[in-house]
């Protein structure tokens, strides 16, 4: 029994799909942001696995993963600021109730 690239890619796919399920089916906007972070972690696992197994000499995947980490953190900050601003005006963060742009 040995662990190869496919095992890590399967783990990455599973984490991404769990995050996708959560992002599509939850009502609390903060939980949707948490599930988006899960999706980005799944993608990062795939990147680092490729760096380890396919290009071990130049670990490009790890560098890419660090950039994804930085961008995910920035996006979480801005997304949460938006959610706080919405809460201040509408007193709710349930995405079912934030439907002013729905026609």
């Amino acid at each position, binding site marked *: 029994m040995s662990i190869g690239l496919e095992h890590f890619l399967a783990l990455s*796919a599973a984490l991404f799909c769990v995050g996708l399920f959560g992002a599509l089916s939850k009502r609390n906007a903060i939980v949707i942001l948490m599930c988006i972070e899960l999706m980005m972690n799944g993608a990062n696992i795939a990147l680092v696995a490729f760096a380890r197994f396919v290009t071990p000499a130049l670990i490009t995947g790890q*560098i890419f993963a660090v950039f994804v980490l930085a961008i995910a953190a920035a996006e979480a900050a801005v997304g949460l600021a938006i959610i706080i601003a919405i809460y201040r005006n509408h007193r709710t963060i349930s995405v079912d109730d934030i439907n002013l742009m729905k026609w």
Partner: protein
Amino acid sequence: MNDPIIVGAFYVLAFLVVASALAVTLARNVVHAALLLVVTFFSVAGIYVLLSADFVAVVQVLIYVGAVMILLLFAIMLTQRTSMAQTNPSNAQYAWGAAVAVVLLALMLAGFTGNRWPALPGPLPSSTVQYIGEAFFSRYAVAFEIAAVLLLAALVGAIVLAADDKERKP
């Protein structure tokens, strides 16, 4: 990666990652979901250690657990209404979301199996920190500087969006 300790560690960490991720989406209380997300992030850092990515593992813990989770917990605190008990409900598209996720998982697993990616020759660098540091300032310097500007923009934007604007009105 044949060592049984590494195989065992992989399966334990993989189970922790997927189980805590599922628990994040299925927990009834959003604070429980946030704390389970911390477990997920730590387990993903463990997976990075298995992949010999020591710098990425430590940065994962520092940034995700240390900064993003604190931010999420503060946002949960600032947006709470009455009781925290049922703060993570599912919407009406629960079944469709599950179906899409399962289909995508099946497609991805079908695409990943088989030895599709031949390995390029070369050894792993002995110190990933040094290698990544040198790469950031030589080959990826532009991306590094742009990431810094992006973080500045996100910082200013988040402050402007979340600031209480009662003081700014004349």
